């Protein structure tokens, strides 16, 4: 088992005051809160910080933890001492949160003050609802279809400790689901101690797509065109989720011109649109012929794009 240095996690000294610990927690919690943070490992860091704070904010837990010293020497396995916890009374280990703690935390403070959840309910009550988040590929929203998703579900083991279990579900994704929406799976929540199982609610976000960006129901595609296609107008090919289409570029188009393909976005009773946002792509001037062509261009079209800048 890995020893957790909670002081290091919080970035405080071992003799930090309660106020300093609280301050450090607040700062880190704001930085890594999964609803606020865009840091890559925000969720894992937030859990780690929450766990450290859970221990360090409680005088009893902190005192007990301090007795462990600085942890085992590098490469050594950590094991709780046999007389661990003697003389300390821990209350409310879980703090009412449904998060799963590290094995290290569980081995020290697990089980304390955390009764089986839902135990107060009668046997005929509804089971607990579960909530999860998933990252879906955009195609799932465009066409619907089944996806296998893996969820980490907190479950109580035989000793009443909260453990994260993997649960694999095969889900029919409803066509037209949008980022930020929730999929409900009736009866897929917890059935522990209940006649009717609860429901499972899954918040959906999309993985970044290689071609399209998503704005509500609309899809946005960066569409590169040549300078002459933009200037003279042209019919160019563009990918859409439903296959390649021909798109008319109007004459005198410029970078940023939006070309709308109605109804080619995410399906719905009023489906979203697909927008091709034009980007002018310049051929490289890497041989004599190309350089000559650019020079001809320059002579034929005296043009100062910096007019507006006053130079």
């Amino acid at each position, binding site marked *: 088992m890995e020893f957790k240095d909670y002081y290091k996690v919080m970035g405080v000294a071992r003799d930090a005051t309660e106020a300093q610990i609280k301050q450090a927690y607040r700062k880190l919690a704001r930085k890594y809160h999964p*609803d*606020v943070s865009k840091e890559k490992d925000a969720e894992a860091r*937030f859990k780690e910080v929450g766990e450290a704070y859970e221990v360090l904010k409680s005088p009893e837990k902190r005192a007990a933890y301090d007795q462990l010293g600085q942890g085992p020497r590098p490469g050594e396995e950590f094991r709780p001492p046999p007389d661990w916890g003697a003389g300390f009374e821990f209350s409310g280990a879980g703090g009412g949160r449904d998060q799963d703690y590290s094995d290290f935390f569980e081995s020290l403070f697990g089980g304390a003050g955390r009764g089986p959840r839902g135990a107060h309910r009668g046997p005929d009550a509804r089971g607990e609802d579960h909530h999860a988040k998933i990252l879906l590929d955009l195609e799932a929203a465009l066409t619907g279809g089944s996806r296998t998703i893996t969820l980490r579900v907190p479950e109580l083991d035989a000793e009443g400790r909260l453990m994260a279990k993997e649960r694999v579900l095969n*889900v029919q994704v*409803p066509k037209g*689901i949008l980022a930020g*929406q929730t999929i409900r799976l009736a009866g897929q929540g917890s059935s522990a101690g209940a006649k009717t199982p609860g429901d499972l609610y899954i918040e959906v976000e999309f993985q970044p797509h290689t071609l399209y960006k998503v704005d509500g129901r609309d899809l946005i595609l960066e569409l590169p065109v040549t300078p002459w296609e933009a200037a003279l107008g042209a019919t160019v090919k563009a990918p859409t989720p439903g296959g390649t289409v021909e798109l008319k570029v109007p004459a005198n188009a410029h970078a940023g011109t939006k070309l709308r393909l109605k109804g080619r976005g995410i399906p719905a009773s009023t489906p979203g649109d697909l927008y091709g946002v034009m980007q002018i792509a310049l051929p490289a001037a890497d041989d004599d012929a190309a350089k000559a062509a650019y020079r001809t261009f320059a002579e034929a079209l005296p043009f100062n794009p910096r007019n507006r800048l006053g130079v």
Partner: protein
Amino acid sequence: MRADNQAALAGEIFDDRPVLTVEELSRLCAVDRTFIVELVEEGVLSVTEVHGGEWRFPGAALRRARTALRLQRDLEINLPGVALALELLEQLESLRRELGLVGR
């Protein structure tokens, strides 16, 4: 690891149903109904219709209420603070989206 069901489970888009009552919302968030009322009073949640004298929320209110709850609990901020944070997060989200649309 086990696949719970061989056949795919049919998912429904929850947000399509503008029918959550205060009771349902408070049960789904595992909070007291007064918390939901406070969220409405603070303008975090908006009531889309009143049905027989009872409030109804869109399904999307679930996610918003749960986010508000997490912010309040994890960051120990009060409801006006939560409301402000949610608003700023939304602005940030739409700015990020716009930025994402302009080049990479």
